[in-house]
């Protein structure tokens, strides 16, 4: 804090020094705690080889220390928590999304290569040939099993599921060498039929540590052997159960044999532009994406225009001549106040094709009603209608505010010049209004471009498109399609492709925003006036 006052040029900065010593110590202790936590996390994440996250944490740690220890940076100290949150929760996810877009990250490729090798090397198998022991099964009260093993030399061993292999002590067993007792160390001998069931299970492991014993057949038991062996120099994995070699394929993220078989699981690798070029090569991918892209634009555009037109109409028509104007306005903004997802779910019930109120009314009046949720065209109409209901209050409010800001004398001038009401509206009101609310209309376009909540809550993107290789619906917009690719159940997560589509959305949003800044010169204003 001493630096604080000095930095701000307070004449009393120096005097306050003694009382600021505790503050300084407090800050130092705080920094130590923060550093300890972040360093431990950095170490842990580095072990997992998640380098992007490590980089983000290193950046945060450096930022916190530099800002707080360097007196010149005093104003930035106030922003320490905000910066930490922005780096970790805003910048890192953006960068990481771009990175994932260039990988094959997804189901089947969810682990790193090191993790896959680790996991494969942990796999064990029972070699067919190398018979080592004949076995007799034992069990105890708690349902645990044990094996009495005799090797080719006739030596006997005893092994349980928890304890390691030990030579049998015949004195304890109470039998002659070469014989098998009915009880041993609290375990009871099982009969042939029970033992046969045990042999079928195949998943039982006996012993501890490196030598695990498994049951190979009714007659034989033997040690488990590590199945896959990784050779770093040739970057291959050998399957010791078949003798087959699998070479690491760093373009696809699998260990593959010369016959084209690949080991599961695969690991994730960067695959360049594959996620982007994929849909050019595959009509099954390109088809839905293009349709979804067009619908996204149509949806956002019609939503903005329809809400704007209705909102403007109401803002003009419901003026001070209407009694209770303020009260009516309060009621008219209720659709804006209700949590949107709740409203949409209500509308979903009202539009229900079998029992919904809207359907019932239409049946009464017209004798039939469209399938609001199942028909691709009518589902779109319904969603646009619902979005109109959700969005017009906002437009009404901003139009009403902007209209009041238009000076009245220009209308008088127009009237004197003999302009009709319609001419006044189209030539005066509308252009002036658009200058004022234009940026908000563009912002509203961006919002609707990504209006996942409405799409998902109304019909979960449905009705589903047929003949597509990815989960896609007729009312899906880009962002909900991305969601379905990444988290949709059934067909497997494809984070890489989902992230690639997110990049397209990024590009669109950036484009619209540039347009918006052009429109308002907001950026210039920002850089001049702040």
């Amino acid at each position, binding site marked *: 804090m001493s630096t604080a*006052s000095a930095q701000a040029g307070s004449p009393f900065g120096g005097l306050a020094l003694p009382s600021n010593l505790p503050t300084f110590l407090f800050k130092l202790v705080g920094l130590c705690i923060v550093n300890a936590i972040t360093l431990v996390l950095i170490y842990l994440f580095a072990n997992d080889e998640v380098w992007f996250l490590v980089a983000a944490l290193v950046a945060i740690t450096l930022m916190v220390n530099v800002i707080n220890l360097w007196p010149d940076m005093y104003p930035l100290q106030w922003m320490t928590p905000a910066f930490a949150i922005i780096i970790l*929760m805003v910048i890192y996810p953006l960068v990481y999304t771009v990175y994932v877009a260039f990988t094959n990250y997804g189901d089947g490729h969810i682990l790193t290569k090191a993790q896959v090798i680790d996991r494969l090397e942990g796999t064990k198998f029972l070699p067919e040939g190398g018979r080592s022991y004949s076995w007799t099964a034992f069990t105890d009260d708690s349902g645990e099993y044990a094996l009495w093993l005799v090797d080719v030399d006739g030596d006997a061993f005893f092994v349980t599921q928890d304890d390691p292999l030990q030579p049998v002590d015949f004195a304890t067993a109470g039998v002659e060498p070469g014989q098998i007792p009915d009880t041993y160390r609290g375990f009871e001998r099982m009969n042939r039929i029970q033992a046969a069931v045990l042999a079928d299970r195949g998943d039982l492991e006996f012993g501890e540590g490196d030598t695990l014993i498994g049951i190979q057949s009714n007659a034989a038991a033997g040690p488990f052997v590590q199945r896959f062996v990784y050779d770093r120099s040739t970057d291959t994995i050998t399957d010791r159960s078949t003798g087959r070699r699998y070479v690491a394929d760093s373009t696809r993220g699998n260990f593959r044999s010369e016959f084209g078989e690949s080991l599961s699981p695969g690991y994730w690798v960067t695959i360049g532009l594959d996620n982007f070029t994929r849909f050019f090569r595959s009509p099954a991918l390109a088809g839905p994406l293009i349709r979804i892209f067009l619908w996204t634009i149509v949806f956002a555009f019609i939503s903005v225009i329809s809400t704007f037109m209705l909102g403007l109409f109401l803002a003009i028509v419901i003026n001070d001549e209407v009694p209770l104007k303020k009260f009516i306005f309060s009621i008219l903004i209720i659709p804006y106040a209700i949590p949107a997802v709740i409203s949409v779910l209500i509308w979903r019930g009202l539009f229900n094709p079998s029992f919904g109120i809207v359907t019932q009314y239409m049946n009464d009046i017209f004798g039939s009603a469209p399938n609001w949720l199942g028909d691709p065209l009518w589902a779109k109409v319904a969603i646009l209608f619902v979005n109109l209901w959700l969005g017009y209050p906002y437009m009404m409010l*901003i139009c009403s505010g902007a209209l009041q800001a238009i000076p009245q004398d220009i209308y008088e001038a127009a009237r004197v*010049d003999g302009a009709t009401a319609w001419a006044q509206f189209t030539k005066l009101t509308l252009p002036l209004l658009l200058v004022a609310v234009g940026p908000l209309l563009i912002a509203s376009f961006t919002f609707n471009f990504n209006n996942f909540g409405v799409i998902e809550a109304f019909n979960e993107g449905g009705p589903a498109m047929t003949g597509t290789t990815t989960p896609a619906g007729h009312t899906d917009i880009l962002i909900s399609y991305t969601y379905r690719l990444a988290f949709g159940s059934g067909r497997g997560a494809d984070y890489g492709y989902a992230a690639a589509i997110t990049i397209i959305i990024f590009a669109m949003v950036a484009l619209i925003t540039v347009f918006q800044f052009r429109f308002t010169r907001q950026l210039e204003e920002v850089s001049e006036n702040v």
Partner: protein
Amino acid sequence: MSNIPISGAKTGDGRVKAATAQKAPIGMDVLKRRVRIFRIVIAILAVAFALFPVIWIISAAFNPAGTLSTQTLIPRNINSVDDLLRNFNRLLTSPQYPFMLWMRNSLIVASTTSVLAVAVTALSAYSFSRFRFRGRRSLLVTILLIQVFPNLLAMVALYLLLQQIGLYVPILGLNTLGGLILVYLGGQMGINIWLMKGFFDSIPREIDESAQVDGATHWQTFTLLILPLVRPILAVVGILAFVGVYNEFVLARILLIDKESWTLIVGLFNFVSDNFARDWGIFAAGALIGAIPIVTIYLILQDQIVGGLTQGAVKG
């Protein structure tokens, strides 16, 4: 605009109309009255449009029949208060749908996020408003540009991030309220720093300068002088953040997996996709309870919200 009088002169429309208006003031009166009736009719229609689903959901909530197909505008067969509240009883006691837990989750997430967001962004905003330092302008512009991309777009990365963090910091992992709060906090930074900086700028700097002449540190100025002055605005910003988080659906749906950790909106959504038609009445009761606090906040803060909206509109 300049061509209006010309076109008017060409057709003569304006002149003719102006002439008739002057000759027949009674006709003008009739016209005015008709316009006024037209305005009132539109207002009534608009109110009906706005309230249509609201009335149906209220009716459904109190309708003891409780299914979509048996719904009527005026509920039938209500013989007692019990009948009237049957859906609410079933909702609050259903073991299948822990509604109170969802409500509690929503309130925890929304209030924690809004309090933390206001605290963190107020600190930054004070600094941006009161200090002049190198890189200040580019930092502000960067923050503005970053928040152009809604954090919803990074949902894949956020999901994977929480998954990773959760390995070592369980309370911030996937399927936890802590993780969700962290994600929401990220989304609150940019916009609120800008908003609050604007409010801080509107407080004259002479106030804190005089305090500093008297020996106050910046921290004292901030906590003892500025904060009390902006408290109402902090409250509004906090409440708006609260409402935004309470209403959020997509990220909550992705990041919260188990029924017990769902927020109210996610719970209602999943409830609906499970058995909409049969339990329409229970859903309606839940929707009412879920929406009423937010609608109340909106109606109370109407002027501030409208003011905030139109400010942006008029400024451009």
